């Protein structure tokens, strides 16, 4: 699950990680009040206004602005709220901004040079352990650093039994070019950051930049946090941070029916039991000259209700020109699935696009007979190749 920057920072702060302080606002009045409160709390008299959307690269699209007065806070917020923010990660349609984070200005002048670093925590799938990945080159696109100066990217693998050990924190600080008191600050920052990661069952932390201020404080200026969906059952407060307005409506609807659905932009819809077979079915569609309109795994329970719900979601998309239902019956019986398809088809009525039903496995022949005998505009297939040929014939 994805959360907003302001939510991510609240999690970090609660777990003892130093952050750039800020308050979230949904109206210009709230933004001004937040700025006044930050002035009282931190003494900051400049503020950074940051659009809260689930996408990076906000600065490039005008979603991060510096305000040097309360009037500017109001003016910037008025402009930013409600805008469609387009960043390199949102796609051309952009994302609507409905909240901003009013944050303290942490780039104030001081006795030492400020420094920006990159730090993330993620899983190393090969070792089955989490890794702190970091670079002295922060505040920029890390993919670019990785491609052009790979020697500037460091990794510290963490033993799950011990967490970040003191010497590891010190090594990280050293590799970032720090020494003395501020190196100890950095080691502490990393140790707390990792502890937060574990505390909330995160699947990704990306702090870009981590800032060394001009008075030698270490803090998180931005925070991208993803939470492991499988662990949400033990984090009810985090589950409440879910922002449905950031999600695709058809995916929310599918979730209500326990369907695993991902919206894509092709012309052939598909409904499959099992994630691997669903991906393989999308591949078949592409190889047959179509483009998959979605990923949809109905799981083990392919019955009339799930088929109906799935078909409805797929057919809501006007770009869909054909639908391929691909079921490999193991425990689930193909003749039952076939009856489910016929039932759902009749119930939905007025289906204008051809539907291909490929049933294989338990009672496949009986299933095909049900489809063929239904008198509906439904094509049946048994082998995967037959299904592929039908897709080609209909949309290729």
């Amino acid at each position, binding site marked *: 699950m994805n959360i907003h920057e302001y939510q991510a920072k609240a999690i970090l702060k609660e777990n003892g990680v130093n952050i750039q302080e800020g308050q979230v606002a949904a109206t210009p009045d709230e933004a001004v009040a937040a700025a006044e409160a930050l002035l009282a709390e931190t003494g900051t008299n400049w503020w950074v206004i940051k659009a809260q959307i689930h996408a990076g690269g906000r600065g490039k699209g005008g979603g991060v602005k510096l305000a040097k007065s309360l009037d500017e806070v109001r003016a910037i917020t008025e402009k930013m709220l409600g805008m469609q923010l387009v960043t390199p990660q949102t796609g051309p349609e952009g994302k609507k901004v409905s909240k901003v984070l009013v944050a303290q200005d942490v780039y104030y002048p001081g006795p030492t040079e400020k420094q920006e670093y990159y730090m993330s925590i993620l*899983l190393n*799938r*090969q070792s*089955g*352990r*989490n890794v702190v990945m970091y670079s002295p080159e922060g505040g920029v696109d890390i993919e670019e650093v990785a491609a052009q100066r790979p020697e500037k990217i460091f990794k510290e693998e963490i*033993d*799950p*039994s011990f967490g970040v050990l003191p010497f590891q924190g010190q090594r990280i600080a050293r590799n970032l070019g720090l020494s003395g008191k501020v190196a100890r600050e950095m080691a502490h920052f990393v140790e707390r950051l990792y502890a937060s990661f*574990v505390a909330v*069952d995160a*699947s990704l932390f990306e702090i870009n930049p981590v800032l060394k201020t001009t008075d030698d404080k270490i803090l998180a200026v931005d925070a991208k946090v993803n939470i*492991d*969906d*499988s*662990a949400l*059952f*033990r984090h009810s407060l985090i589950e409440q941070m879910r922002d449905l307005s950031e999600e695709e409506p058809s995916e929310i609807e599918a979730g209500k029916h326990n369907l*695993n659905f*991902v919206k*894509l932009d*092709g012309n052939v819809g598909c409904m*499959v*039991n*099992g*994630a*691997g*077979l*669903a*991906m*393989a079915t*999308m*591949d*078949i*569609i*592409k*190889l047959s000259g179509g*483009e*998959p309109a979605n*990923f949809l*795994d109905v799981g083990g329970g392919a019955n009339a209700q799930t088929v109906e719900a799935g078909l409805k979601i797929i057919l809501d998309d006007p770009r869909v020109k054909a639908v391929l239902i691909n079921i*490999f*019956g*193991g*425990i689930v019986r193909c003749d039952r699935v076939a009856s489910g398809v016929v039932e759902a088809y009749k119930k939905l009525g007025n289906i204008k696009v051809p539907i291909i039903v490929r049933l*294989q*496995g*338990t009672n496949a022949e009986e299933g095909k007979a049900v489809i063929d005998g239904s008198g509906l505009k439904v094509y049946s297939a048994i*082998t*995967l*190749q037959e299904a*592929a040929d039908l897709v080609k014939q209909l949309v290729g």
Partner: protein
Amino acid sequence: MSVLIDQHSKIIVQGFTGSEGTFHAGQMLEYGSDVVGGVTPGKGGSVHLGLPVFNSVEEAVKATGADTSVIFVPPAFAADAIMEAADAGIAVIVAITEGIPVADMIKAKAFLADKQVTLIGPNCPGVISPGKAKVGIMPGFIHQQGSIGVVSRSGTLTYEAVDQLTKLGLGQSTCIGIGGDPVIGTSTLEAVKLLMNDPDTEGIVMIGEIGGSMETDAARWIKEHGTKPVVGFIAGQTAPPGRRMGHAGAIVGGKDDTAAAKMEVMRACGLHVVDSPAAIGATMLEALKAQKAG
């Protein structure tokens, strides 16, 4: 021969009395697997499906001599069930459960590291050595005893491949569903090694998907050490980056874990890579013929 499990495997079911455990234990027994009992904490001493129920894996192992366990325990408790089985001396643990928190699996993997145990899964269909034993949820009837080994991250896609093989007269030695999660007990490479070293396995089908580097790791090893033809497929050629495609582990994170990148490495390493999942069986048949002719 076969790997991991055979007719001598003594199997217990963790989560025995739950609906999943009950149904699939019944199916395994029907297939002829030697299920010797099960574990459900609090229900020890009772009898279920005509078999003894124990409170712990330790008790079950003592009483039955079980060496294999299959886990249907709900996600919140499944990692603990895996560690309990390993602690009790079980040699092969097959974890079917889907949706175990990653942090729990990181812990379980660390716990298993210094023990003589093989974990298959989680989030997998299990393992079957056709005609000998089935430890999992796959439909037994599509399989046939033979000499093709199958390694796969998915469930129904594996059944699809097996079905194609069987219909072409290619039986299977052992089919290993390694699971679709980001942290799993046995990697593609480890499963491929088992089959490559199995004298009765003549060819290997390796089915992967987007995300991670397991298939390329295996392909590079096969290039150096492979002695049998390997047919490879990667699901998710059309998957967009950054989106989880059903399996927790099926997500394109960078340029190296796309289907295209993996297939390219696999081709370069001499695997018989198929673009279409409909061609897995036929390609295996050809590869075997070519191997015999050459």
